[in-house]
């Protein structure tokens, strides 16, 4: 059995447990297991850059979520699910699954890169000329910071804006209740 299928089944089981469990701490740990599984998958797919980022962000999120979870009184989810909503979501998931199976038949096998089958793909240019054009030995870095640096700039802008927004909402002054206006 291929290693990818073992990892995929592990990740799917972790995701289902994370949704279905009533204990919030178990859900956090299952999400973390899902992250580690996807990190291992990236590693086996020969993408160490994204694998390092995934595992580091996952560890940080795990620490923060566990700290946020165990310091609250409400660690159990209660309440029943609505019947109508469950039926609608199951039907939508089934339709997307059937359409996705059609799409997946046209894709190459899992774990084989698509640019090996298309000789004139854009990635071939990056692999051939990346070292000469940018001087960076790491092709991924030469793509994200030289060929496709606009993407990184947009990403940095989104990151900057979201952090500024979070800082504005969480600052000391915003936490206090507004004083009653004198009438």
């Amino acid at each position, binding site marked *: 059995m291929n290693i990818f299928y073992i990892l995929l089944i592990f990740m799917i089981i972790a995701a289902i447990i994370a949704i279905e469990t009533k204990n919030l701490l178990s859900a956090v740990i299952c999400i973390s297991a899902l992250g580690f599984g996807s990190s291992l998958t990236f590693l086996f797919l020969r993408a*160490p*850059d994204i*694998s*390092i*980022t995934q595992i*580091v*962000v996952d*560890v*940080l999120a795990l*620490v*923060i979520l566990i*700290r*946020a979870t165990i310091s*609250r009184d409400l660690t159990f989810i209660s309440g029943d699910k609505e019947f109508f909503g469950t039926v609608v979501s199951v039907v939508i998931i089934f339709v997307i699954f059937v359409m996705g199976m059609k799409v997946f038949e046209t894709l190459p096998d899992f774990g084989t890169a698509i640019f090996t089958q298309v000789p004139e793909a854009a990635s071939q240019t990056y692999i051939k000329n990346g*070292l000469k*054009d*940018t*001087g*960076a*030995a*790491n092709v*991924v*870095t*030469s793509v*994200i*910071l*030289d060929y496709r*640096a*606009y993407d*990184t*700039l947009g990403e*940095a802008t989104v*990151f*900057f804006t979201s*952090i500024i927004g*979070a*800082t504005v909402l*969480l*600052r000391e002054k915003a*936490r206090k209740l507004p004083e009653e206006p004198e009438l």
Partner: protein
Amino acid sequence: MKGMTIIVKTISSWVKVLIVLFGIYVILFGHLTPGGGFAGGVFLASSYVLLMLAFGREFVQENLPLTVNIKLFCIGALLFATIAFLGFLFREPFFFNFLHQKYDFGEAFNLISAGTIPLSNIAIGLMVGAALFLVIFLLSSFRRGT
């Protein structure tokens, strides 16, 4: 004393140096080995999160005040934008890798190579590290009822 027990404090005070060093390594060698600005920045942020969990918020607040943290974050973002705009100085497109294309100093596979790419990595690492720690620090100060 605030924070955790003496065992956690001792071990985290040893480990924090290694985490910071590895983060700096990942940022500086981002153009040679896997990694880069984002991953290294998260390493730097996680070292401060470790200190915050082990020693308490006040210790970190003394070491890295909130105003300094916000300044580091903004300096990182500004540095990245400045590197992008510097391409205009040479009448070339935005994000032109002028250090490699015009001057071509440093050899490939060495630390000093690849023109503006290491500088961009440093800027992104500074921004991401400061920003993530800033948000986590602000979130951790939330208490129920305040």
